[in-house]
């Protein structure tokens, strides 16, 4: 782990210092380009000079050859004693070639360093021409004299001059070559330095960027785990709201029933002494029959049919001339009595009828209230048990033996209130082996899938839960008769933050987290959906510790 408090600052302040290195990078590049062009030009020029020196040297060598040849031709003339046609031709050829070479040399020679050579050659040629003229006239002896006097001397001077020049141009060539080589090496070193420095700068920038990205990635990962935690908390919040409702309902029943029992007993105790005074034997018999029947029957739940029964009973009671026939009928209905009411005749015919029914009600209602209290307590205990299973957070992080159906039942218990009414719950559990897994996380998966199913059905329809053993694992199917999931939504519904619910209602993490949990178990989750039938299948391997 890197301790990187700094890069966070560098992200926010990045745009300002970024400008500076960018500018200097460009200026360095521009300077390097200009230097490269300049050095290339210089090297090119040096190479040109070296080339020229080399050419000059070669030409000079050729001058030497031409001069030697001319000398040889002269001696050939002397030897022959005449200038024949052949010799004339060769002389002309030699002159022409020499002229061309000298012409070239003149063009190359800009520093006038060859002027001495030219004048020596001109002198030499004049002497040779003179000698040739004498040979042509047959004056061989004179020609030989001129030779001995001047030509040989001039020839030697000329030869020496050419040699000196040759040497100088060789030196010049080598020097310029050395300069050019040095320039090339220097340029190469400079380029390497520039490339190195630019590379260093770029890699520095890359490193800084890399650091920033790493920090950003860490931030993102942290945010992701925070969001997953938030989703868990949101699910818990939703659950707690549901549980509050689930617990407060039985609590309301318990409180009100206890109050009612208390009041009923108080009233009954006050009235008890009057029982024998107010009712005769027949009325008493009728009274105790009423008490007995009330204890053995269940109160009638409000419904259209029962209201019709109550109206019928009211009419019957009115025939006995009761003042509050409707209220008395209501009391009798609450005691579960609505038919075969003939046994009440003695009681209702008397003038204490209504008082007696109320008294009987007070005596018996505490039994019914007690039953309701017991049921409410059972219900609360069940919810608390389910909550305990739900919230059993395993701290060890180790796999445990899990009975998959227990988890499903826990979730059903929690969603009891939403399931009990218009949703028909079908359990199709086949015996399945216990698997190795993380029970609390699996409960989160079942919660999510069942919650989605209830929502898809808008709390009305059929919810089917199936368990099967499949290969080396168990398969749980959750099928609902809801609106179905479109293929487009199916493609994206396991993505994090994808939700079809209104903004603020769903986090879009439910199925994403469910899938992650199933993958953690090396299982898979699949969906098949069409309007009216959506099935989520979760396969989990039996696995090992």
């Amino acid at each position, binding site marked *: 782990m890197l301790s990187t408090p700094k890069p966070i600052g560098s992200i926010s302040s990045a745009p300002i210092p970024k400008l500076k290195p960018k500018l200097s990078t460009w200026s360095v590049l521009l300077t390097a380009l200009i230097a490269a062009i300049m050095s290339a030009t210089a090297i090119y020029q040096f190479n040109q000079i070296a080339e020229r020196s080399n050419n000059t040297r070669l030409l000079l060598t050729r001058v030497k050859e031409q001069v030697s040849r001319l000398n040889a031709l002269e001696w050939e003339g002397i030897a022959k004693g005449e200038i024949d046609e052949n010799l004339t031709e060769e002389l002309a050829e030699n002159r022409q070639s020499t002229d061309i070479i000298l012409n070239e040399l003149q063009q190359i020679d800009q520093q006038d360093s060859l002027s001495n050579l030219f004048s020596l050659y001109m002198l030499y040629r004049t002497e040779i021409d003179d000698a040739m003229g004498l040979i042509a006239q047959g004056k061989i002896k004179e020609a030989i004299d001129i030779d001995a006097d001047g030509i040989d001397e001039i020839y030697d001077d000329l030869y020496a001059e050419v040699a000196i020049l040759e040497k100088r141009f060789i030196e010049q060539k080598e020097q310029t070559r050395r300069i050019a080589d040095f320039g090339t090496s220097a340029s190469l070193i400079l380029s390497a330095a520039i490339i190195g420095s630019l590379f260093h700068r770029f890699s520095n920038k890359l490193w800084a960027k890399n650091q920033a990205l790493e920090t950003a990635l860490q931030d993102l990962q942290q945010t992701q785990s925070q969001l997953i935690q938030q989703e868990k908390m949101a699910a818990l919040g939703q659950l707690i*709201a549901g549980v*509050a409702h689930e617990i*407060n*309902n039985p609590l309301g029943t318990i409180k*009100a029933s206890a*109050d009612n029992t208390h009041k009923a007993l108080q009233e009954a105790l006050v009235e008890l002494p009057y029982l024998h005074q107010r009712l005769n034997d027949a009325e008493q018999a009728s009274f105790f029959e009423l008490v007995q029947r009330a204890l053995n029957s269940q109160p009638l739940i*409000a*419904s259209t049919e029962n209201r019709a029964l109550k109206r019928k009973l009211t009419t019957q009671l009115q025939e006995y001339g009761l003042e509050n026939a409707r209220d008395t009928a209501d009391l009798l209905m609450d005691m579960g009595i609505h038919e075969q009411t003939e046994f009440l005749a003695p009681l209702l015919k008397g003038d204490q009828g209504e008082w007696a029914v109320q008294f009987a009600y007070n005596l018996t209602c505490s039994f019914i209230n007690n039953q*309701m209290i017991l049921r409410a307590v059972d219900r609360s205990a069940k919810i608390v048990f389910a909550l305990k299973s739900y919230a059993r957070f395993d701290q060890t992080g180790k796999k445990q033996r899990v009975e998959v159906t227990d988890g499903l039942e826990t979730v059903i218990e929690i969603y009891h209130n939403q399931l009990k009414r218009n949703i028909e719950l079908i359990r199709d559990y086949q015996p399945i082996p216990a698997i190795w897994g993380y029970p609390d996380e699996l409960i989160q998966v079942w919660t999510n899938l069942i919650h989605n199913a209830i929502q898809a059905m808008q*709390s009305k329809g059929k919810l089917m839960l199936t368990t099967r053993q499949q290969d080396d694992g168990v398969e749980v199917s959750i099928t609902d008769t809801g609106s179905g999931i479109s293929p487009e939504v199916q493609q994206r519904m396991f993505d994090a933050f994808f939700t079809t619910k209104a903004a603020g209602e769903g986090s879009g993490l439910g199925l994403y987290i469910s899938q992650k949990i199933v993958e953690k178990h090396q299982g898979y989750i699949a969906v098949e959906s069409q309007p009216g039938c959506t099935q989520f299948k979760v396969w989990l391997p039996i696995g090992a510790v």
Partner: protein
Amino acid sequence: MSDAAILCVDDEVTILKCLKEQLKRCFGNRYIYEVAQNAEEAWIVIDELISEEIKILIIVSDWLMPGIKGDEFLTQVHQRFPKIVTVMLTGQADEAAIERARREANLYACLHKPWTEAELQQVISTALD
């Protein structure tokens, strides 16, 4: 005989049972007490009572019920019968729903489960004064 009624709506039968008994013990024969398990049934009861020329004074409704929720039901009641006093009795306080009911159903009071007899008595008595 009374010609004024109090109607209680809740999806839990036991709640209806003890609520009705409680009201009876508090207000005796002054009113007729009717119950319904959901909004749909409540409308039937309302129609029946009207046909019997019985005036509905108060409707006490749960909020979280299958189908139509309490606030929506009370709003519908208020639109049709503006004189009926609306009271909510809820186990799970959804603040937004309560606020909506206050605004759109002229909600008189909201009781929270588990409620006390005194609270219930006070709300009903003051509402009917």
